[in-house]
């Protein structure tokens, strides 16, 4: 062993005097483990850190888990329930007898621009059919 290596070894031995006592190690361990386990982290961060740790492997597992949950539990119904219910279709009747220039009021126009459908128009009274006697 060369002199430099011997000196290094002697210094390493000297530095072992700085090692923490068993009490200090136990004290720190309690605080470290408690601090680590009791830290408040959002669920999103937990998942994000999982994906960052192993993007491909964990991403594939997350996708598989999501598919299993979607198809084997009622969870798949949730998006259907959240979808807005469709309104009844409104058909604008164009009657030849009523063919006249129709001026939409500003309220009707705004309603049309929101819904995209023609505004509901009052239907004319149906003509009374008289029974035909031979």
């Amino acid at each position, binding site marked *: 062993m060369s002199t430099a290596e011997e000196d290094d070894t002697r210094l390493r031995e000297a530095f072992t005097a700085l090692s*923490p006592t068993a009490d200090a190690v136990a004290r720190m361990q309690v605080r470290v483990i408690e601090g680590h386990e009791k830290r408040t982290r959002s669920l999103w961060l937990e998942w994000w850190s999982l994906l960052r740790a192993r993007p491909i492997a964990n991403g594939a597992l997350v996708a598989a888990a999501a598919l299993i949950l979607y198809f084997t539990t009622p969870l798949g119904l949730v998006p259907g329930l959240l979808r807005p219910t469709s309104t009844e279709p409104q058909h604008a009747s164009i009657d030849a007898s009523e063919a006249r220039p129709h001026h939409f009021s500003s309220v009707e126009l705004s309603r049309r621009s929101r819904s995209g459908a023609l505004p509901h128009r009052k239907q004319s009274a149906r003509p009374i059919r008289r029974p035909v006697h031979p």
Partner: protein
Amino acid sequence: VFVFFATLYAGPEELPAGEEQVQEWVRAARVGNARAARQLYAAHVARVFRAVRPLCHSDADAEDVTQDAFIDALSNLARYAPRDGVRFVGWLLALAMNRARKRRAHAAKVEPTEAAKLAALDERATDSMEASQLTKRALLKVLAELPERDRQVLALRYGAELTAEEVEHVTGMSAANVRKICERQRKVLLERLGGAA
């Protein structure tokens, strides 16, 4: 089931013997294995403490810095990426050194200098102290008189037992510069320690 399969995944990195076990603990701790976190702590606590102690004013300060560094490390394991020639302890010590530097900068405003504190303590040293305590006191006194950069390099090289390349990773100094500092201060330290003993 998810955690179980996630822990089975082994990374592609090839590391020297001994470090493989540490990397396994890291992988397990990342996905929430508390036992692996404890093992990581037990394997590295003494090294981290020895490295930060010369940069702190007291044992209590060093304890705080060490525990904060471990909490930081365990909380941010997802950010850790193994590098060639640098062990996990290198990354851990980079966090610890950063913590120690911040604490030292904060404490410098309110506390007396370390040399002054050690000088005051030295007056109270008694013959009843154990040899290891005397060595510790002498070593801290000698280190306190060195420039901070040299003290940090020596603490990492001999306290944490890092290689010059790992010290380069932690401090940002070149490995050649680290070796030069060690060579220069080694004899000074040994002479002063020999004189103190």
